[in-house]
């Protein structure tokens, strides 16, 4: 036999032939299986062919067939163990047929040369279906999965109420999410868990175990690491043997044997060894008492209440939910918020996965594994996003909720002012996030009051001006791509900028110089400033000088913008633009280093990031300032405010500043040691009293790598 001459290319051709043969055999055997689902010989043969397909496909880097065959093999293995599966799930044979068709198609299209063969969406979709089936068949118990299950139960509990808002997208998102979770839930250990057994805390030992495994998995370990790992496990085994009860003994014995075997045979740290130690770890954990850290899992514990309060609904896990069974149920807004909170955590977890992916890549993990991970990750990120979007949709209500109050309001104000007003409303069906309702309503009331009081003339004045005796106010709402645009227009006198200037000067808000040189545009911005009213006397209704600035600062927290169009003599329009897709859950934030510590600062509060020479920083009345874009900008002494030690690079000739925008449009700069990057964060407001008074911070956030950092609050830093 002259095998030495066979080239890899020839072997590859033979591989393809072998796959084709297997496909034919599988077809025949699947037909046999359909006829006699109890034939264990046929079951084993199908299993064997799939197994062999997996093995050889992986040898030739035909990953798509390899992965598919692997999944179907898992399915067959379960069927092999439990014959009743086929009668309980008759769809499985069809699934296997479909899989075989995919093999056939894939192998036909395979190029002649050997290379990496990637998964197509068709493969991924099919694999997901098989996964779903596998999940239905085998529920492996594991701590994290349980947690996820709780979360999913929570989702299920609110699912019916989501149905009420006809959010089919959300239902799908929840279902997709379930699927994705099942893919990774098995593997992701969580740092904040504590493990105890027989009253002893084994957390550090378990963590050592885990970190050793993580090194192996990342393929980044030295001989010394292996030694440390084995020593750690030795320690764990020893201390466990002392307290172990009967049920833990077999696992311990197995772990001990595994250790011996490893040493005896000098095995390589390969997937099998890693799997062995991972499997044992999982078994150990099942016997341990597991507690989860305080944060960020709080609201999960409320889930039983949620379930209890829902009037009717689905108690089955999400996997089994069928849309047609779901009934309409009302759910308290608080519960929706709780749910929102859960989604927030999901987002954080999805960020953690992103970070892991990056870390894996850096660590040079096995490419096939990385690819799987990346694919799963992408699905999760996508699903979480869809979930987030849908939950925002659920929270949306029509703006009519606010607008319907206005006819009465306008009538009453007009009556009191002795004015005649016609109100025209349009776009009242535009959706708006529930949480925005109050702020938008207050803003509108403010604006409309001002319009009637200041804007519209008395009927007598209007007659002189040649206008209709009845003033007209319109509120137009429109959805513009990602924003809601609300425009309030009156046909009154507009704003007399001369009066505005004079008032501002009289109240010392602007200097003589400014008074004389100010442009009309600049004068218009004065209208937004607090303390200014063009009215000689404040009335009950408006003119107390807490005007538009309040409107503005309330809307700014939603990233809203206020602008105005003044037509002197003709009227005034005030526009509010509020983004709707800028979801309220996540914020883009800059990660920065201060006093050697990492902080977050939401992007929305940042005007600009500049690096300037230290020589440009001056002292002015005891405060550090620098000039930037013709503006003097004060430097906030963050170090003493936050009680930090000065950072290292004091000697650097340059200093980086983040220029912040405060509530009243004041600008201040915060010097930072380093900008670390940008990240999506979920801000968790302080819950503990001890933290509540922590100044200059708005909350905590968990970063992708699991670190918890403080989120700075620009408003309090600046003002």
């Amino acid at each position, binding site marked *: 036999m002259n095998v030495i001459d066979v080239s890899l290319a020839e072997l590859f051709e*033979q591989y393809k032939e072998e796959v084709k043969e297997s496909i034919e055999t599988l077809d025949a055997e699947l037909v046999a299986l359909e006829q006699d689902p109890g034939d264990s010989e046929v079951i084993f043969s199908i299993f064997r062919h799939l197994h062999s397909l997996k093995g*050889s496909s992986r040898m030739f880097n035909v990953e798509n067939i390899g992965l598919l065959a692997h999944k179907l093999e898992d399915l067959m293995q379960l069927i092999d163990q439990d014959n009743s599966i086929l009668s309980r799930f008759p769809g499985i044979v069809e699934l296997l047929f479909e899989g075989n068709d995919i093999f056939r198609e894939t192998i036909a299209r395979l190029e002649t040369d050997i290379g990496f063969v990637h998964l197509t969406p068709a493969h991924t979709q099919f694999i997901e279906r098989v996964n779903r089936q596998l999940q239905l068949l085998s529920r492996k118990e594991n701590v994290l999965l349980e947690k996820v299950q709780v979360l999913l139960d929570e989702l299920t509990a609110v699912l019916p109420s989501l149905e009420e808002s006809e959010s089919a997208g959300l239902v799908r998102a929840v279902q997709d999410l379930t699927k994705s979770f099942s893919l990774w839930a098995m593997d992701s250990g969580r740092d904040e868990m504590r493990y105890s057994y027989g009253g002893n805390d084994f957390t550090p030992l378990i963590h050592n175990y885990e970190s050793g495994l993580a090194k192996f998995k990342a393929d980044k370990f030295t001989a010394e690491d292996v030694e440390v790992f084995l020593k750690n496990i030795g320690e764990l085994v020893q201390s466990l043997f002392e307290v172990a009860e009967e049920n833990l003994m077999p696992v311990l014995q197995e772990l001990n044997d595994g250790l011996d075997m490893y040493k005896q045979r000098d095995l390589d740290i*390969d997937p099998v060894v890693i799997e062995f130690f991972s499997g044992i770890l999982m078994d150990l954990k099942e016997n341990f008492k597991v507690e989860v850290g305080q944060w960020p899992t709080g609201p999960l514990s409320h889930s039983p209440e949620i379930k209890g309060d829902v009037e009717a609904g689905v108690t089955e896990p999400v996997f089994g939910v069928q849309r047609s069974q779901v009934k309409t149920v009302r759910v308290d807004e608080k519960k929706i918020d709780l749910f929102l909170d859960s989604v927030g955590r999901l987002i954080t977890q999805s960020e953690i996965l992103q970070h892991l992916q990056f870390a894996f890549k850096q660590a040079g993990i096995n490419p096939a594994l990385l690819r799987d991970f990346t694919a799963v990750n992408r699905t999760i990120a996508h699903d979480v996003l869809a979930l987030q979007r849908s939950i925002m949709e659920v929270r949306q209500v029509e703006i009519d909720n606010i607008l319907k109050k206005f006819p009465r309001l306008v009538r009453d104000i007009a009556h009191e002012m002795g004015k005649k007003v016609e109100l025209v409303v349009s776009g009242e069906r535009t959706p708006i996030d529930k949480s925005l309702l109050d702020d938008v309503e207050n803003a509108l009331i403010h604006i409309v009051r001002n319009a009637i009081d200041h804007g519209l003339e008395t009927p007598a004045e209007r007659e002189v001006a040649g206008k209709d005796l009845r003033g007209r106010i319109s509120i137009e709402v429109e959805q513009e791509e990602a924003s809601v645009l609300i425009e309030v227009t009156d046909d009154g006198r507009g704003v007399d900028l001369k009066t505005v200037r004079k008032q501002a000067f009289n109240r010392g808000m602007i200097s003589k110089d400014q008074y004389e040189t100010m442009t009309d545009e600049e004068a218009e911005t004065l209208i937004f400033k607090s303390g200014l009213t063009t009215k000689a006397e404040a009335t009950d209704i408006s003119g107390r000088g807490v005007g538009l600035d309040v409107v503005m600062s309330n809307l700014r927290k939603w990233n809203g913008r206020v602008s105005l169009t003044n037509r002197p003599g003709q009227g005034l329009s005030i526009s509010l633009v509020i983004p709707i897709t800028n979801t309220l859950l996540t914020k883009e934030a800059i990660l920065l280093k201060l006093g050697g510590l990492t902080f977050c600062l939401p992007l929305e509060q940042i005007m600009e990031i500049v690096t300037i020479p230290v020589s440009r920083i001056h002292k002015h009345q005891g405060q550090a300032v620098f000039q930037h874009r013709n503006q003097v900008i004060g430097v906030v002494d963050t170090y003493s405010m936050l009680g930090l030690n000065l950072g290292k690079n004091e000697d650097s000739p340059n200093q980086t500043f983040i220029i912040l925008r405060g509530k009243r449009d004041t600008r201040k700069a915060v010097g930072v040691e380093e900008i670390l990057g940008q990240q999506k964060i979920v801000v968790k407001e302080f819950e503990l009293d001890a933290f509540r008074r922590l100044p200059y911070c708005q909350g905590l956030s968990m970063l992708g790598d699991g670190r918890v950092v403080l989120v700075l609050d620009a408003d309090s830093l600046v003002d």
Partner: protein
Amino acid sequence: MTDNRTGTDEALNREETKRVLIVDDSSVMRKMLAKFFTESGFEVVGLAADGVEAIEMFDRHHPDVMTLDIIMPKMRGTEVLEKIMARYPEATVVMASSVSDARTVMKCLKIGAKQYILKPYDQQKVMTAIRKALDL
């Protein structure tokens, strides 16, 4: 192999050359392993496609080392291993399978397999394990 070898060299060589039996139900995998072994200076004494054939060939050739697949027709690799170890306690058997289930791996090692190679493997991975198994 070169042509100018003397008979003595050849005889000496044969004595040192390790003889291997390859067991796998996939013909491509058998050929691939055979290629690895011949390229590394081993002599392939047989290729078996199922468990029963494996035992027959082992009886006939008494190889220095056997690579053994697990999921095969007629008789599973684990059963083959048990039979071989019972008959030849000194046999060197290296499992070569894509069964990654750690309990199966442990079981094989306990029965007496010297090493366990997981598919997909390459020449280096196979030869490292084989040399460890043979104490080379």
